């Protein structure tokens, strides 16, 4: 039987589908009996999803003028 800590250490491989069968069965057996680990797994997955959905942040408009100046310095057309 895995401890909760051991289970948490396996989550990257588990979610990537890279856990060997025997370890995966042990992990799933633990999850079936341990509500805190089940909640941990679900919230770990939500954390990943939230991160994946971060929008790009536009650079400040002043940077465009700096970029044009740098292009002029380098003799690049702009």
């Amino acid at each position, binding site marked *: 039987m895995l*401890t909760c800590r051991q289970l948490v250490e396996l989550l990257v491989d588990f979610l990537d589908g890279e856990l060997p069968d025997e370890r995966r069965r042990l992990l799933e057996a633990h999850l079936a009996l341990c509500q805190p680990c089940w909640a941990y797994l679900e919230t770990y997955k939500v954390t990943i999803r939230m*991160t994946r959905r*971060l929008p790009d942040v536009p650079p400040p408009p002043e*940077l465009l003028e700096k970029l044009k100046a740098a292009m002029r310095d380098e003799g690049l057309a702009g």
Partner: protein
Amino acid sequence: MEEPRKEPQPAPSRHSAPATAEEAFHEYGPRVYSLARRMLGSDADAEDVTQDVLLQVIRKLPTFRGEAAFPTWLHRVTVNAALSHREKRARRQQREIHDPIDRLFENGSHQHPVRGWSVGPLDEALNHETHRLVEEAIADLPEHYRDVFVLADVEGLPNAEIAAMLGDSVSAVKNRLHRARVLVRHALAPHFEEAPAC
């Protein structure tokens, strides 16, 4: 002695006019600036890196043949520029980082109650407050973990590609990614946890 980082070179080409500053800024600025800002945790440093990378884009975009190769090249150039900038700013301190997992478990079990989160799909995708909390949690990560987390979970790069970019093993990348996720999850939990059952 560390070898100087090699800049990837775009594939040789046959067409395309040079990009203007406006095109480069509007087309690639948000991607480059977001990645640099998350890796460096500083707006000013991200601006420097963005300017440097966009100049490279303007110089080299006309030499690009395969459009499919361009996003990979842009990622690599941005990551390299961000890492070089950080090295210039201050030599990276190789210090011992306490394993974040140590403080979450006692005798192998969760040290604190673990509750579900009340967060819906729309909150995850659209809520500005959620984005702000996640950005803050990323900025608070130790650099050692932040690079891997940003490249894997924000940018969606495969672990093997990240390992090649950072000069690490895949298992080291996975280990750091997991610890970063644990820290980000830990930072977000108080904001989303459901109230305890009475």
